[in-house]
């Protein structure tokens, strides 16, 4: 049997990884390329994780302040009168996909501290415009179906916390909250103040707003709004003013919501505004939160069939622009960092190009010793793959470690340098969010190695194409 036949199908010979390792170990630049790829991949993984966590938390809190689906009766032709609350509730509750409904009355108002002489409409400090949305709610419905109770518990400053809600919860978390206590006044907390306020209708206001107004539970606020039938042509606008006592503060985590929303009972709302309107919005809780689009379309259809004019939107529709802004931010950052990773991969390319130039004679020698030309090229592409693979692995480990510990790292930076890189009052989150997706991170590493592998083919191919006789003569 001729030796040529005997030696057929040898597969990838052992000298390729062997020489590749030796070549790499002898060159500090390969460590540099490895580190660069590692840092690039780690940065990409960290940023993608943080941005995904940011998006997740943003969606969670946007969602938290918004119902699954909102039904907004048209305010146009029929006026508020035609929108009978019963009609709407009947149609909406009928739908099998609806778990619960909270009907609300909503009215914009101007808030001022009770007894203060002036309204500061243009107070520039802290963007403290005194316009608010007052929601007239059914306490029983809200306590059962919305996140209002949760927001009441999230209040950070202890003197603002609504005690009954918090304590009952701490002692016995799964118990159904008592809606009667939602607007209960903590007499202990207001014992130093005049108890004259205690008989006023109660209101719940955002922690930020309360702090901005310099108020505490037990203090009174005035809400000024316009009546239903405003005659804008008249010389003086009639207004409606109501005085409320603060029963508690809430914190949703979403600054705008905390600043602009106040809750009163439905009865107090109607007393204050004297409105004939029965329904401003309906917050619908879905049984299956994954099929909201379907539910929205069916509800819209059902309402139209019943002759009720309303717009129906999911919480994502409601916050579409805000959510897409966060998504765009995530995508742009990811693209920028992906380009950075590609850039570090080109470092492998230049490293290999230099190596091939430096190793021309070695290529001739290897050919003389019987290495096939493609095998010689493979020595160099193996070098590139080793660097990219090791760099990717470093980046994976580093990136996962960073992404899983962004918050401790943030704390550490604050402790060491005093720099707050993620102030919690600017963003809505107390901790730096991060959502680690190991499969995605592995895909990033894989893509890096594949890309590096592809661009390493160029110098490797150049090495394979060298004429061994020319290469041996090379000085």
């Amino acid at each position, binding site marked *: 049997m*001729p030796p040529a036949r005997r030696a057929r199908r040898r597969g990838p010979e*052992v000298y390729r990884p062997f020489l590749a390792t030796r*070549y790499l170990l002898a060159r500090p630049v390969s460590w540099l390329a490895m580190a660069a790829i590692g840092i690039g991949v780690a940065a990409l993984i960290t940023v993608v994780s943080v941005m995904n966590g940011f998006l997740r938390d943003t969606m969670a809190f946007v969602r938290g302040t918004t119902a699954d689906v909102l039904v907004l009766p048209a305010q146009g032709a029929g006026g508020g009168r035609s929108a009978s609350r019963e009609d709407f509730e009947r149609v909406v509750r009928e739908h099998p996909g609806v778990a619960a409904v909270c009907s609300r009355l909503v009215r914009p108002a101007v808030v001022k501290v009770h007894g203060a002489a002036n309204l500061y409409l243009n107070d520039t400090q802290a963007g403290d415009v005194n316009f608010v949305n007052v929601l007239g709610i059914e306490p029983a419905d809200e306590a059962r179906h919305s996140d209002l109770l949760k927001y009441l518990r999230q209040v950070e400053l202890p003197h603002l916390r609504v005690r009954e809600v918090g304590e009952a919860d701490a002692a016995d978390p799964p118990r159904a909250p008592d809606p009667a206590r939602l607007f209960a006044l903590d007499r202990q907390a207001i014992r130093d103040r005049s108890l004259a306020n205690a008989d006023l209708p109660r209101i719940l206001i955002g922690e930020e707003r309360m702090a901005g107004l310099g108020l505490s539970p037990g203090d009174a606020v005035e809400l000024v709004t316009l009546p239903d039938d405003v005659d804008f042509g008249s010389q003086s606008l009639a207004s409606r003013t109501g005085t409320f006592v603060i029963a508690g503060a809430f914190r949703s985590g979403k600054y705008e919501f905390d600043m602009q929303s106040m809750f009163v009972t439905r009865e107090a709302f109607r007393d204050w505004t004297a409105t004939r309107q029965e329904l401003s919005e309906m917050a619908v809780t879905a049984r299956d939160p994954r099929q909201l689009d379907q539910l929205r379309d069916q509800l819209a259809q059902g309402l139209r069939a019943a002759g009720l004019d309303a717009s129906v939107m999911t919480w994502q529709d409601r916050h579409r622009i805000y959510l897409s802004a966060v998504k765009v931010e995530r995508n742009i950052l990811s693209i920028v960092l992906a380009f950075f990773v590609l850039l570090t991969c080109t470092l492998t390319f230049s490293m290999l190009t230099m190596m091939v130039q430096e190793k021309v004679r070695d290529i001739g020698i290897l050919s003389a*010793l*019987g290495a096939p030309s493609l095998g010689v090229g493979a020595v160099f592409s193996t070098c590139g793959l080793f660097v990219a693979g090791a760099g990717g692995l470093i980046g994976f480990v580093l990136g996962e470690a960073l992404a899983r510990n962004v918050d401790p790292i943030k704390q550490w930076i604050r402790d060491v340098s005093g720099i707050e890189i993620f102030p919690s009052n600017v963003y809505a989150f107390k901790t730096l969010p991060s959502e680690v997706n190991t499969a995605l991170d592995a895909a990033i590493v894989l893509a890096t190695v594949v890309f590096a592998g592809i661009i390493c083919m160029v110098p490797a191919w150049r090495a394979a194409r060298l004429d061994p006789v020319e290469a041996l003569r090379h000085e």
Partner: protein
Amino acid sequence: MSDAKVVLRATGLQRRFRMGQETVEILRGADLTLRAGESVAIMGRSGAGKSTLLHLLGLLDRPDGGTLELDGTPTQALSRAARARLRNRLVGFVFQFYHLLPELTALENTLLPKLIACGPFAWPGRRRAARAEALALLAELGLADRAGHRPGKLSGGERQRVAIARALVQRPRVLLCDEPTGNLDERTSDVIADQLFDLSHRHGTTLVLVTHDRELAGRASRQALLHEGRLDQAPAAEPGFEAEKAAPAPLQSSP
């Protein structure tokens, strides 16, 4: 000698190179037949095509005409990969400038042809035997205690001996040496030449030497002169051969 097996048969080898507009005919029909255990010294002027001939015989280059049989296998029609495999199994190269890989130790340089022939899964099984073989070869060349050194730590003579060990480690049929002592001082040259002839004799390897050194050439069983693109196999009376004497053999001390 004449009934020994033919390991290399070259007939009418031609090789042309394009130099700009002109075509230079380096080889115009060189014939060479080598039997097992034979040794031949090829001499000739600088630029006569000695190295080119050696590259053709070692399958590093393809002739433009003529045929070459290696160990009974015609090589003209073989693919590049098949030629590389034949080269690995049948041919050993020794170069004037050693051509060792600087990143590898003497032992690893010696093992390189075996690494080239071996798949990664077969290697762990063969590693021990291959290392023993390479170490034995290095010991035969007096380099037993140098096996772990990189070429940079070795003298010129030692480097060339590592190169010889590397060329012989696959037990090739043909050992092709291009000025093997051309870069060494006289004493070292003698030692290297002794070892080269001794080893190739013991391993039954056919030796082809390209050299300017008449003394070295004289130790070969045959001499041939490469002149005007052809091999003259009985060159004693050839005037060109005498002229070669005048050309100074490069003598320099080992680094």
